[in-house]
């Protein structure tokens, strides 16, 4: 999930009608300006604005750091993000090393471990985790009965760290495994040939070479946790930056400068960590410059090592599945309090959901579907313009589309509220609370991922296939429509489904923009239900429905990608 700009330099095709593509490019740029750049600039600007006089000032920042609550929130957010990286590393490192370095039957389990947490955002399972690991949750009740002590898994910030790290460790696992897998085997063999072995070999050669992948994953985990709004809200942890921003804007009002100061800090840290990981990785993308036999040499595990490996994997598997199991129990349970398991089981929560909460599901399908559609349309056009044309400024289109990576959802939401506040559209009403805004916010947030998918798909289509069509008389537009887009279909579809799945459970921008229950999607519905103990069962049922939708979408996109690469494999003209 690293952001690599594609460096294929095509010879510039002579466009007979460059205007059509240029117009599309300009329209996209205008859209991104309107819904990404301007709102963010607005937020930053207001952070430096004196709310009374309207002059530029740094007073808001001194006010912020003068407040003990904000200082505490700031340090708490940093601490939680850093500790989540530490714990995510502790989980991911042994798994990555096991799969890449050993011949181990559990590797398949580890591969799926990497996907399971990603299909459910952390806030959905947070309450369930409280019931499993909280002070009077299942695990602590049992520990207390058997051994007479409790472990404060979920106390205060611990709970946020715990929930976030078991959800986001896959980012480290995936990136680190990819790096380890890409290390040329001869790198390791050369070290052995010169006398290194065992831990020394790992410390001096293997780990440094895998460093770029690790940093990329760790930076992603840091940003995700630092920006996350849903999880602390669910766990009732208020003294962190994102919840404070949310509460100031929704509680004190749209003109309160503190929400903007916090937004500025969130953006600054996102940009900073992306920039740091870029600095560390610059000139160190080792994997791509190496050639020769791929992958580390695999070793057999001894029987004892195999037992130890399975124990590690099963413990981690238990942790990873805990939110899902907890959510399942919660959704089928009657009353679950001060007991290891619910008192009895029932289907009434699902009944409640289908009778009362149907609009959440239809809204989600509408918003996420619309967002994903916008994403692939923009993604395909930008990919084509960047990779296949010589239009001036085409790189900027890429940068603009990717910039959303550094913008937390809360900030985007605040930006929309501020920018479209008081704008009335005839027939629609106030623009800021129009449901289409939610859809656009979701599209903007998922665009970077959709764009990468489209670019990857386009790179699979050799330029000569397009040239052959033109040579046989097809115009530029016709060869794009008849040759390029059909060949990209698999990749575009995968991009659509990924965007859809992640947008379906987005909460941070959504929660800022939802104006009423009638317009709310699933994620907001879960949040509402989970607010009261009596609504938890229904909230959990809604969560299970969300998980099923996302899991289904993820499964479909996997199948599409597999089928597509299968078809591609059969074709002799592989172009890379």
């Amino acid at each position: 999930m690293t952001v690599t700009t594609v460096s294929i330099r095509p010879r510039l095709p002579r466009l007979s009608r460059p205007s059509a593509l240029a117009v599309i490019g300009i329209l996209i740029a205008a859209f991104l300006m309107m819904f990404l750049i301007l709102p963010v600039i607005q937020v930053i600007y207001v952070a430096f604005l004196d709310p009374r006089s309207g002059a530029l000032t740094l007073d808001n920042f001194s006010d912020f750091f003068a407040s003990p609550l904000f200082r505490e929130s700031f340090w708490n957010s940093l601490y939680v993000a850093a500790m989540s990286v530490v714990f995510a590393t502790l989980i991911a490192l042994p798994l990555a090393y096991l799969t890449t370095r050993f011949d181990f039957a559990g590797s398949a389990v580890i591969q799926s471990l990497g996907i399971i947490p990603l299909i459910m955002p952390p806030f959905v399972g947070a309450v369930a985790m409280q019931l499993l690991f909280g002070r009077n949750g299942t695990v602590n009740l049992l520990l207390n009965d058997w051994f007479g002590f409790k472990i404060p898994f979920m106390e205060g910030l611990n709970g946020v760290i715990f929930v976030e790290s078991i959800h986001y460790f896959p980012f480290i696992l995936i990136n680190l495994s990819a790096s380890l897998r890409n290390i040329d085997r001869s790198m390791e063999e050369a070290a052995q040939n010169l006398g290194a072995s065992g831990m020394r070999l790992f410390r001096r050669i293997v780990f440094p070479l895998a460093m770029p992948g690790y940093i990329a994953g760790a930076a992603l985990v840091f940003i995700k946790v630092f920006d996350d709004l849903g999880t602390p809200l669910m766990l009732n942890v208020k003294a962190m930056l994102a919840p404070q921003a949310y509460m100031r804007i929704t509680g004190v009002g749209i003109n309160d400068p503190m929400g903007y100061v916090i937004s500025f800090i969130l953006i600054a840290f996102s940009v900073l960590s992306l920039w740091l990981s870029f600095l560390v990785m610059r000139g160190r993308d080792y994997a791509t410059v190496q050639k020769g036999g791929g992958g580390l040499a695999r070793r057999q595990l001894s029987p004892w090592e195999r037992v130890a490996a399975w124990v590690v994997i099963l413990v981690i598997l238990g942790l990873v599945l805990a939110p899902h199991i907890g959510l399942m129990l919660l959704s089928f349970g009657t009353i679950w309090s001060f007991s290891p398991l619910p008192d009895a089981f029932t289907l009434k929560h699902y009944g409640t959901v289908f009778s009362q909460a149907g609009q959440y599901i239809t809204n989600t399908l509408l918003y996420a579907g619309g967002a994903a559609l916008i994403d692939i349309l923009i993604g395909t056009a930008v990919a084509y313009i960047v990779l296949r044309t010589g239009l001036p400024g085409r790189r900027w289109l890429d940068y603009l589309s990717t910039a959303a990576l550094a913008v937390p959802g809360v900030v985007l939401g605040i930006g929309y509220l501020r920018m479209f506040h008081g704008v009335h559209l005839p027939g629609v009403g106030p623009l800021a609370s129009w449901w289409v805004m939610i859809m656009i916010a979701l599209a903007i947030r998922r665009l970077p991922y959709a764009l990468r998918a489209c670019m990857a798909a386009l790179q699979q289509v050799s330029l000569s296939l397009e040239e052959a069509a033109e040579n046989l008389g097809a115009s530029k537009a016709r060869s794009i429509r008849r040759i390029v887009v059909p060949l990209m279909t698999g990749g575009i579809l995968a991009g659509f489904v990924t965007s859809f799945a992640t947008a379906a459970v987005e909460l941070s921008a959504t929660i800022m923009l939802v104006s009423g229950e009638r317009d709310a999607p699933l994620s907001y519905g879960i949040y509402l239900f989970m607010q009261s103990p009596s609504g938890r069962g229904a909230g959990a049922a809604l969560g299970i429905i969300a998980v099923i939708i996302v899991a289904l979408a993820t499964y479909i996109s996997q199948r599409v990608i597999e089928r597509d690469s299968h078809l591609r494999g059969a074709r002799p003209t592989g172009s890379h």
Partner: protein
Amino acid sequence: MNEQSVGIRIEDLHLSFGDTKVLTGIDMEIRAGEFFAFLGPSGSGKSTLLRAIAGFGPAPRGRILIGGRDVAGLPPWKRDVGMVFQSYALWPHLSVRRNVAFGLEERRVPRRQIGPKVEAALDLVGLLPLADRMPSQLSGGQQQRVALARTVAIEPKVLLLDEPLSNLDAGLRVQTRRELLALQRKLGLTTIFVTHDQEEANTTSDRMAVLDAGVIQQIGTPQALYDRPVNRFVARFLGTANILQGEGTREGFRLPGGATLALTAPPGPRDIVLRPQAIRIGPVEPASRDRLPGVVRHREFLGSQVRYFVDAADTQLVVDTLHIATRPMLEPGAAVSLAVDPEAVVVLEESGGRAPI
């Protein structure tokens, strides 16, 4: 650097990847200080054999003696053989100097001695001025020399080179192979060089082993292998060869089409090898012993030589002649007469067995 070079002896070595046999019954002896080439097409097992000597890949059956010590059971880091990888395998996160120092550090060489040894090794390959660069800042040829310096710095007993020239461009390849040879002579290191390029093997090695399908076909000096190949594979792999099927008779060797060459061959069906330059092409003369009538079908101008494809003896023969500016070339369709020097004919043994060394 190495006062005492050692020989290598491989005895009855077998190796398989799962159920696939990759090396079968390898027996050879490489003398101390020798520059020895493993030559063969891709998939012949030559790299696998080299890697087995270094201790990489699946464990083989058989013995590998280096200086009299059987290393077959040792892990790679205890074998004392230096290997230069085809991809060079320079560690991208370490500078040139630290790449070269690595092996010395792993061998617990006292810190005071490491610096001078690293500089000596870099000096040997002429790269001392670039010691503080990162590998990515070097050209392909320079990277290859760093890989070489890194390997000789540990003063290994033998030096293994896995297709060291294959990632260089053509001009650099010729220069580098001369430098490699000069360096090997200077160090006196027993060296094995894996290549699929017969010209590389011919120009560098003292002796070579030709491998095909995991079996050694023949071992000998480049000249011996070219002049006296034991089977069709060796004859074809080392240069262009006309291979004719015929029959040994009392009068000589009878070719299909009727002509008989004056050479002694054991009776019965046999293959013979005729190198293109061992056939003289000339105007039609009355057919006689050692002369074959033929018709030129096609001509290739190669610069120093002209290559003719001539239909004769029920097959097509390749004939090379020196190109001389004043001599007119033969046109396709021309009837010609081919003369064969019986001395230059190699009679192959029936099967692809090994020749005496």
